[in-house]
């Protein structure tokens, strides 16, 4: 019982007083250091994913009419209920796995699915770093895709020129849409969450309108659909047997670029400084307003590029509501990736796999695709509230870190 006083300092481990304990990406020493830190930080997200999958399994079981019937006779035949439930979960998740990672084709589908998720996720993550919550990914990717589509079907150019031009147009389109949010925030203090939600709907209506005009509507059609993108703007598929377009490589490069921008450039330092403490950044003489506009512009550009890779890759035409849901998936995966570029890549691959797998799951087991959104929502919750995961798994606080705050109230600037 007589503890020597020399041991007293050990009561407080360094992590406990480190205010950035919940954000390991902020103290990385290099790209390798980032990887090391992420591996250390993986335990929380992994538990969150596991918990979400378990809750998802329970939902699958308790909404399946046949299995429910088995549970109805639980007291007469408890074995049936349990084995039926297990079979249902096993076949559902098995199908999910098989159609996302089980074969070369499935893996290719996963990588294609994750391409826009990574890019739009980077958009949300980069904005987080600058202290901005970009819910506007949906709008930005739509506007970006519209710009790219216009370039795609208006010009007739060789691929070397046409494809980069379309990619740039998509990036600029999304970038301008995002910069608008940044401008409104910097100039008038309008909260970015509200303006980006509103601009999402404006973008959706704008797309509806565009698809009703002769410029964007496919000739001879009355429904909202644009012409097919010509071959000269499509993202090439280098390997014939493994149908992943170059957009995926582009997404990885962009992720590296984001890491470089954030960690190795003055602009990135400014963004992080403004995100960490706008008042301190202003006091240090940084242009907070300009940084906000620039951050949202870059974030919007990334989302626009994400939308463009869908348009030039997997779905070469615009339709109403064009993949707006990716904008919301991106929020979940930026949270899951703890807003670090490499984390976003990992989370993007996971979500890509979930989405690629869910189609196969629905086909094979009649478990509807929408369960994926439930699981994604739960992942958001469990990542944002580590306390819940801690309670469930009885993990010590310091191993998971505290929850992160991403935004201030409506009125705060």
């Amino acid at each position, binding site marked *: 019982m007589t503890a020597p006083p020399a041991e007293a300092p050990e009561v407080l481990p360094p992590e406990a007083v480190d205010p950035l304990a919940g954000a390991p990406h902020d103290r990385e020493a290099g790209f390798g250091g980032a990887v090391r830190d992420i591996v250390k930080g993986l335990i929380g997200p992994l538990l969150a994913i596991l918990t979400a999958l378990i809750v998802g399994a329970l*939902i699958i079981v308790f*909404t*399946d*009419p046949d299995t429910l019937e088995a549970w109805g006779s639980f007291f007469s035949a408890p074995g049936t209920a349990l084995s039926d439930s297990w079979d249902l979960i096993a076949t559902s998740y098995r199908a999910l796995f098989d159609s996302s990672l089980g074969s070369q084709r499935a893996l290719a589908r996963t990588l294609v699915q994750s391409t826009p998720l990574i890019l739009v996720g980077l958009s949300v993550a980069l904005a987080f770093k600058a202290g901005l*919550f970009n*819910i506007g990914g949906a709008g930005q990717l739509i506007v970006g895709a519209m710009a790219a589509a216009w370039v795609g079907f208006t010009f007739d150019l060789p691929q070397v020129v046409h494809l980069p031009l379309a990619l740039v147009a998509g990036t600029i389109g999304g970038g301008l849409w995002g910069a608008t949010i940044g401008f*409104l925030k910097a*100039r*008038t*203090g*309008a*909260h970015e*969450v*509200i*303006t980006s*939600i*509103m*601009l999402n*709907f*404006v973008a959706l*209506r*704008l797309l*509806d*309108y565009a698809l*009703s005009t002769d410029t964007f509507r496919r000739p001879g059609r009355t429904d909202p659909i644009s012409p097919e993108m010509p071959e000269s703007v499509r993202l090439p598929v280098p390997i014939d047997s493994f149908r992943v377009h170059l957009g995926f490589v582009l997404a990885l490069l962009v992720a590296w670029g984001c890491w470089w921008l954030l960690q190795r450039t003055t602009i990135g330092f400014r963004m992080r400084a403004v995100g960490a403490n706008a008042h301190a950044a202003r006091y240090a003489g940084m242009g907070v307003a300009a940084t906000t506009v620039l951050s949202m512009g870059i974030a919007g550009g990334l989302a626009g590029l994400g939308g463009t890779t869908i348009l030039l890759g997997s779905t070469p035409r615009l339709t109403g509501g064009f993949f707006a849901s990716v904008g*919301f998936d991106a*929020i*979940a995966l930026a*949270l899951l990736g703890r807003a670090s570029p490499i984390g976003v890549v990992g989370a993007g691959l996971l979500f890509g796999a979930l989405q690629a797998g869910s189609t196969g799951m629905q086909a094979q087991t009649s*478990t*509807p*695709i*929408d*369960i*994926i*959104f*439930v*699981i*994604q*929502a*739960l992942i*958001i*919750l469990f990542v*944002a*509230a580590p*306390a*819940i995961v801690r309670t469930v798994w009885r993990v010590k606080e310091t191993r998971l870190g505290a*929850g*992160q*705050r*991403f*935004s*201030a*109230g*409506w*009125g*705060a600037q």
Partner: protein
Amino acid sequence: MTSVTTAPAPRDDVVEDTGARRHALTVAGLCIAVGLAAVVLFGLTATSDQVSTLLMNPRGVDTIPDVELPTQIAAFVLGFGAIALGVRSLQVVDPKITVFFGGALGLFALALVIWAARDGTGAFYGLIAGSVQRATPIALGAIAGLLCERTGVINIAIEGMMLAAAFGAAITASATGSLWIGLLCGILTGALFGAIHAVISIRYEVDQIVGGTFINIFALGMTSYLTVRVLVQYSDLNQPGTFRPFEVPLLVEIPFLGPLLFSQNVFGFLMFGLVAFLAWALFNTRWGLRVRSVGEHPRAADTVGISVRFIRYRNVIFGGMVAGIGGAWFTLGSAGRFDQNMTNGKGFIALAAMIFGRWHPVGALIAALVFGFSEQLNDYLALLDTPIPSEFLLMAPYVVTIVVVAGLVGRPRVPAANGQVYRSGG
């Protein structure tokens, strides 16, 4: 200003004054622009012999005569009226000035309505009645939002709460055959999601916007999943029917306003009742004072012995219940069935209405009516074959909200502690 070149000490009131001045000029400019637009777009494009007929009665009723107006003169009068409002607004002191812009926009809308009916007949009563109908869920959602935010809990989950409640109401009403039980279960579903939001944001201190995003995605995923999983197979679980309108005796006889306000289904009465009750209760009862004090300065409220967490829990759950009523409107008050993602962004319009209405129940109702009107105007114009793309009208609420939060027509005052976690003694 002055030609003095020595740097004067910055004075707060001077800054205030130029800010107010600029604000007044903005409002006046917007009013005049709107008025000119009405004159040019509607007045100059109409000819002097065109006449607009506006139907003033619901179908089968004939209490007041329909209105016939010379289109061009009416458009000129309304347009110049808006310009006059702009000029007049320069002579008025802040902060009532925004009302002038509202008035100018109203005159512009009226000019549009009359212009669209030139050489034809516009269903004016139908337009207004439809606006009230469409405003009902928006106003309920906005009230749900302000109940939370007045205590300092941000609620962007109105959409998810309404969607979940719409689903819960539809299946319970179908299963029990009673619309009232359906409504009750809708309210309970809303309360459940309110409680989830409260626990996430108050107990677990999760960023409230992230928590709201979770609820929105979860509710959309869950209801879509259950629709495919259950409702497709058991379609009789998705036939709740709808509440019939109820007529208040005597009051319904009032021309125009009678059928408009006193012949509605239960949702309309609940909505108007809640607006009236909360407009009184928030500012005149002990409950309201506590709610507002917790939202403005939780530390002070705690110091005088108010339990910040309790007030917040109670209001967020109460807000969820109101969102539940709003959600039940979709299935039991309007469509008579549940469809995937049937709220379709109305929850976000409600959020916009809450901000536009400046966190005040009456403001929220007015905003909801404006947004409902801009939706209903589509149908009105479509019937008259007006060459205005409906997408732009549907965009209007969102653009208006951006204009409002950007402070172009006066900055809304947000509850000071909105979004802040409160730890007592911390």
